[in-house]
């Protein structure tokens, strides 16, 4: 989509773009190019020397079944974080949209988790679910649930998914609520007259009309689950037990930041960049198409 009306000016657009372009080039392209270059090197951590190894970092990664496994882990993690946080948020939003009294208070309270730093969120959740000190873990064990996320990969995954999803509920809730309020009342009335009851109206009218919001949130949540959750994973499970909660970004972090294996870490960054690039293109495609809605 393009604007029909534009200004004619030769210099001005470049001037307007300069600050962002400078920042982008200096702090994005330059480092990204270095990462790209490093992915072809096997450097020692201190940068005292490096061997050019072509694609062997990538080869190494793709021969590592644990790395491939972490794609699956990431997919599972991302899928559930997105599913849980979006569906819970949608449920709340639908209800808050309908109740007239108290909607403001509900909204204000639901916003809180959004303000919590991921690093702190991880600790909060440990305080609830860590088998040794967690309050909720204590009561779970008291009622006979075999709660042991330090050894049970499934439970560990559940835990990090819940914690990560929790932080994102507020954000999704606000967007869904806004989206719901933007649906023309007359469409819902039309459906009521067409004979649709509440649930039917939601399923066949409201939910489809919410799809631009839903898609936008889908992308945002996927990106969130991909990149911004490593603080949570780091504090809560460190990727374990086994590798059951090692998602791609955590691996980039732990190989590069903890393990000082800069070549592998750079190669992983490059792979992530590609994945993200694909996501970006998909998002643009979709948004461009739906703007005319």
């Amino acid at each position, binding site marked *: 989509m393009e604007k029909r009306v534009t200004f004619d000016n030769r210099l001005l657009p470049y001037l307007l773009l300069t600050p962002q372009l400078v920042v982008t080039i200096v702090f994005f392209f330059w480092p990204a190019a270095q990462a790209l270059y490093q992915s072809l090197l096997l450097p020692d951590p201190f940068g005292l020397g490096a061997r050019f190894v072509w694609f062997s970092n990538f080869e190494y990664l793709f021969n590592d079944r644990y790395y491939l496994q972490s794609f699956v882990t990431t997919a599972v993690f991302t899928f559930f974080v997105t599913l849980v946080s979006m569906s819970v948020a949608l449920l709340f939003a639908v209800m808050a949209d309908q109740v007239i009294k108290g909607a403001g208070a509900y909204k204000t309270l639901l916003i809180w988790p959004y303000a919590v730093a991921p690093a702190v969120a991880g600790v909060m959740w440990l305080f609830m679910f860590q088998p040794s000190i967690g309050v909720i873990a204590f009561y779970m064990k008291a009622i006979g649930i075999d709660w042991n996320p330090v050894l049970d990969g499934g439970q560990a995954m559940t835990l990090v998914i819940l914690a990560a999803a929790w932080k994102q509920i507020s954000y999704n809730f606000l967007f869904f609520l806004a989206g719901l309020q933007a649906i023309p009342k*007359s469409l819902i009335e039309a*459906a009521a*007259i067409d004979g649709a009851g509440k649930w039917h109206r939601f399923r066949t009218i409201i939910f489809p009309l919410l799809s631009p919001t839903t898609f936008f949130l889908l992308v945002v949540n996927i990106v969130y689950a991909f990149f911004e959750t490593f603080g949570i994973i780091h504090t809560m499970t460190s990727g374990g037990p086994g590798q059951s909660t090692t998602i791609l970004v955590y691996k980039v972090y732990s190989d590069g930041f903890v393990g000082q294996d800069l070549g592998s870490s750079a190669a992983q960054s490059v792979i992530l960049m590609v994945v993200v690039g694909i996501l970006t293109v998909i998002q643009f495609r979709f948004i461009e198409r739906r703007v005319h809605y």
Partner: protein
Amino acid sequence: MATISIRDVRKSYGKTEVIHGVSLDVADGEFIVIVGPSGCGKSTLLRMVAGLERITAGTMEIGGRVVNDLEPRERDIAMVFQNYALYPHMSVFDNMAYGLKIAGKTKDEIRQRVDQAAAMLQLEPYLDRKPRALSGGQRQRVAMGRALVRNPAVFLFDEPLSNLDAKLRVQMRLEIKQMQRSVGTTALYVTHDQVEAMTLADRLVVMNAGIAEQIDTPMAVYERPATRFVAGFIGSPAMNILKGSVSGADFVLEGGGKLALDTKPEETGRPLLFGVRPEHLQIATAKEATLNLSVTAVETLGADTLAHGTLSGANGAGGELIARLPGSAKVAPGDTLPLTVQENMTHLFDAETGKRV
């Protein structure tokens, strides 16, 4: 198949009452048009029939059944909205089929009914399109089709044509009327366009500020408006209204002029309003003339000419008038136009209550 009976229905939003007790009986198959200025409560009344607004007081019956507490879907109605309210994510076919699907009709029946409606509305080529790929007129027809396929007891229309351009409006107007005739369904139709009101209605409900001022056939409303408001609202350009009082067989204008009256009401001396429609003023010879119009502006419409002016000269003063003259009458601002009033085409209203005398 359905009569509607509205008995002293009222509606308040919070403390403000916006419908002050409207009663109306609609016969089966009748086409009722509700007309009135913006904000007078037309939509509110219609939406109460639809079940989209709660009724504050009074009773509402559809087909003999009290529906006050029934949900829209239990009322057996279909509604066409002003902005169409088409489901943007569904194809034309699905838009029309939606109500049928919900009603649990079979695939075959749905297809057959939609096809039939589409044929009637000439929508066949567009069945697979999304609403956004349709022109205004086509969308309008889809909205109509959606109501049509349901085969309801009552059709409700809320200004369905007001978003269309003039040309399309004329065409759709005819189509709606024909469609309603052919299916014979009771219809309530809200508009503020009086041409629509006149051409479509079996009976007209003229509303003003939450009250039904007159309920009658269009011609009766045109010919014998019950109130000054109705007189001014129906007819374009609006009826000329002059202030004055009756004196013998004449109407004496405030400015001093005199007009002959067809009938002689008793109420001599009481302040009254004298009304005559622009189309009932005719050019006359200077001798015959009962009125002289000092023309201030002229609008030529091709088929007619509108002469705006003030009463002047010997036999009249003190009023603004519009005369509608056939064809392209040769008048220009500054002329004085000798006019007569067509017989039996004058109206008198009480100056205070606005009621017809």
